[in-house]
């Protein structure tokens, strides 16, 4: 048998794909995902992931680091490296350092958020094995797909086809690796 990526099923409605996802989850499958043209709540609820927490943590850390670095940059310049006494005003004029620190904090948050998004999605990639699935181009337009990877310890083509069929699959097919 040639190398396989997994078994994919095509669905017309998001509810069907979500129902399949719930069933796969209940049956203990791990390496599967739902593909669709928009972020829809029912599918989201049926697909377990901790990425939201991860990305929030990354972005929050980036915000803290950005704010600290932005502040330190100014503190270092104005207090440590080149202190100038202007009319006896404090060297560490913190209210005046806040605006720039905030902008740098925002910059860090947004960019690290973008990078965290790319890394958690394993992007950018020029090719994904799943693109080989028939009519998969409609996953970004109007259809929903569920794919269980061969790498799943419980992978069993017969059983998966059965689950797909129970929820009105249009077509099940094997995706080459």
């Amino acid at each position, binding site marked *: 048998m040639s190398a396989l990526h997994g078994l994919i099923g095509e669905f017309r409605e998001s509810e069907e794909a979500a129902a399949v996802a719930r069933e796969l989850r209940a049956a203990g499958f791990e390496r599967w995902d739902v593909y*669709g*043209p928009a972020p*829809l709540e029912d599918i989201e609820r049926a697909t377990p992931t901790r990425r939201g927490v991860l990305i929030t943590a990354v*972005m929050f850390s980036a915000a803290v680091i950005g704010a600290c670095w932005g502040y330190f940059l100014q503190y270092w310049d104005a207090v440590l490296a080149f202190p100038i006494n202007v009319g006896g005003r404090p060297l560490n004029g913190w209210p005046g350092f806040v605006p720039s620190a905030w902008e740098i904090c925002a*910059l860090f948050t947004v960019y690290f958020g973008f990078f*965290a998004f790319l890394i958690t999605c394993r992007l*950018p990639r*020029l090719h994904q094995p*799943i693109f080989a699935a028939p009519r998969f*181009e409609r996953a970004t337009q109007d259809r929903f797909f569920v794919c269980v990877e061969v790498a799943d310890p419980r992978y069993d083509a017969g059983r998966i086809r059965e689950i797909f069929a129970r929820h009105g699959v249009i077509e099940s097919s094997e995706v080459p690796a």
Partner: protein
Amino acid sequence: MPERAAELGYDGPVIGPEQDFSSVSSTLSDLVLERPTPRWWYVGALISGAFFVLFIIACLWTFVGGVGVWGVNIPVAWGFALANYVWWIGIASGGTFISSLFYLVGSDWRNGVNRTAETMTLFAAAAAGMMPILHLGRQGLFYWLFPYSTVMGIWPQFLSPLLWDFFALLCYILCSIVFWYIGLVPDCATLRDRATKRWQQVFYGILALGWRGSARDWHSYKAAYLIMAGIMAPMVVSVHSIVGLDFAAGLIAGWHSTQWPPYFFIGALYSGWAVVLALIIPLRRFYSLERIVTERHLDVIAKLMLATGLMLAYCYLLEAMEPFYTGDKAKVTEYLASAFGHYGATFWARNTLNIFVPQLLWLPLIRRNKIALELISIGIVAGMWIERYNFVVSALAQDYIPSKWGWFGGTFWDWAILIGSAGMAMFGFFAFIRLLPVVSMFEIREIIHKRRGREASGGGRQ
């Protein structure tokens, strides 16, 4: 010309009830992939391109001749460049605010216009970014603003709002690019998958970064986007407030006041709404998008514009009250001069265009007349520039010491930079509407899905 779609009415739904996932995907991507370039596009791109060339020439001439080719002098050392800067960054802020704030509050109409708003932001911010650099005089040394003092031995003054402004603008432009691009990734994947020509598949394939639309990827996307929106909304408030502080920290009689940050920010939102309206009214018509960007969208933005205009009217009243409340003779003189003196015409022009005329928006009749709405919006965009001009120039022209008073008038090159920068922004916008989807497809699909969910729970399954 394709047939024009029927309108839905101002009280109608936010998107045509017949629209589904496939119709949205095909309508919006065919505009880019399939449809031959319409004639109006060539006309628009050519005109704006010509002004873009004028902008380049004017910039080069400024580099060669120095800022002396402008009308700036002493006392009026801040002329068009600063008025343009404040105006452009204000327009940009308005666009980001529509996109981020109304994402956070979950308004369904936001998804029809956010792509236009963000794109306009991008080019407006680019135009804004050019102005301070041109204004520096020694443009080649602009990098002295960067805080790498360890290498250069040049020490920026971190307590100056002008330096805050540098950080604010730089960070804001960089963040806007990512905020705009991350929203495009799933739509580029749709274009990649619908494209039939090889170059389109490669071009959109690269822009789509290999996006597959997996539920877990969508999860990452939404988490990142939500927090970005939460950062961008306060960021634009800070950016434009810092622009206001540039003036507040100045010692000029007409500027030295703490009221400017909100005054500037409200003006920024106002011009942002106006530009978005002025762009989407023709765009939906020419691209026959009446069923996707509906009259509901226009109505909502027109009402927001009216509300913001009233806030701005309050700011103008406060601006008028302050000098008399403090009783400071210089402030009173400056204020009266700005209203009735050499620059009085601009004062009344701004009041007319920004406050008096937009009161027509109270009437549903006017709000529902697209030509009237377009004209009022363009009037506000112009009025906001005039406001900035009056604010910058008239305060400098009449400062504390009458012997120091002097007038400013724009030269050909001043006007060339102003109009040319508009040409640059419009040219960028034309390029965008030809190459990328003008409405965010996947966000429209979300709305369709939600509507279907409501119908299903309300009326039972069909």
